[in-house]
């Protein structure tokens, strides 16, 4: 509670473009500028929200690699369709995505975390880029996965 070290933001290196300062690596491609405005539409085409992430061109190589690794890691997490024939019991229990607070509807793309919490893929993927933990139970996502991936 109430924790506020003056320097505590120093480790919050934001690797993500903030509102108003979004920049795209390929400014010559006019299509990319629509990405920001039509995320919903764009995403349904891409089927993989994280792949639509554009990195800040001024990121260090190390930071870019870090984000790229994280995107690969996120894409290793199982994805499914809400209400689909292959859906597990977890999706039958959860009624809404606690990030956007909108009820799941049949056909929504769902991401399954190792702790079995489920979210809209478009909601959780953007979060996992920022913090690799489940927003509901704070379970890391996932140390084991990360280690196994690093060894690949």
């Amino acid at each position: 509670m109430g924790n506020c070290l003056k320097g505590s933001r120093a480790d919050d290196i934001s690797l993500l473009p903030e509102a108003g300062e979004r920049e795209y690596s390929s400014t010559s491609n006019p299509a990319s500028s629509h990405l920001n405005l039509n995320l919903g539409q764009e995403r349904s085409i891409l089927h993989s929200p994280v792949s639509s992430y554009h990195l800040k061109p001024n990121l260090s190589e190390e930071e870019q690699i870090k984000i790229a690794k994280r995107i690969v890691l996120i894409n290793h997490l199982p994805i499914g369709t809400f209400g689909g024939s292959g859906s597990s019991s977890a999706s039958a229990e959860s009624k809404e995505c606690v990030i956007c607070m909108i009820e799941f509807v049949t056909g929504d793309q769902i991401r399954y975390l190792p702790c079995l919490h489920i979210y809209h893929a478009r909601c959780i993927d953007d979060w996992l880029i920022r913090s690799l933990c489940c927003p509901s139970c704070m379970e890391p996502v996932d140390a084991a996965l990360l280690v196994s991936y690093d060894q690949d």
Partner: protein
Amino acid sequence: MAEPQSSLLLKKQLGELNKNPVEGFSAGLIDENDIFRWEVLIIGPPDTLYEGGFFKAHLYFPKEYPLRPPRMKFVTEIWHPNIEKNGDVCISILHEPGDDKWGYEKASERWLPVHTVETILISVISMLADPNDESPANVDAAKEWREAYPDFKRKVARCVRKSQEDCS
């Protein structure tokens, strides 16, 4: 252009809080056309030094909400170790999520996208009742709270009185 997720989510919360008010605070918008800037009135929690006070505060949500936290600032003068003299609230759940590999160790103390106006205010109200003097935002208030409690109490009492006058 479709309405962004952040504004839909905030509208939903505002509607819900209007329909089912939560004890301890009331919430609305600073400007009814701007869903990203909220004004809340916090009732000084009972059995604390702040009891009887009415503290106005503003919440400023980023467009990336709920992926990023809002900022919170008390507009009513308030004397508290974790609130800066200019009113800025310093509470760990409003800190940007960490992004380093080991950041998850403290992830639960930081911002999470499941936080709502309600959960933020519950944390702030509990902070009023129970200051954290390990990393104060108002060093003078923290020092008084630790070493000169009667002075601290007097200053808070003054703020409480002032807040009542402002509201009447």
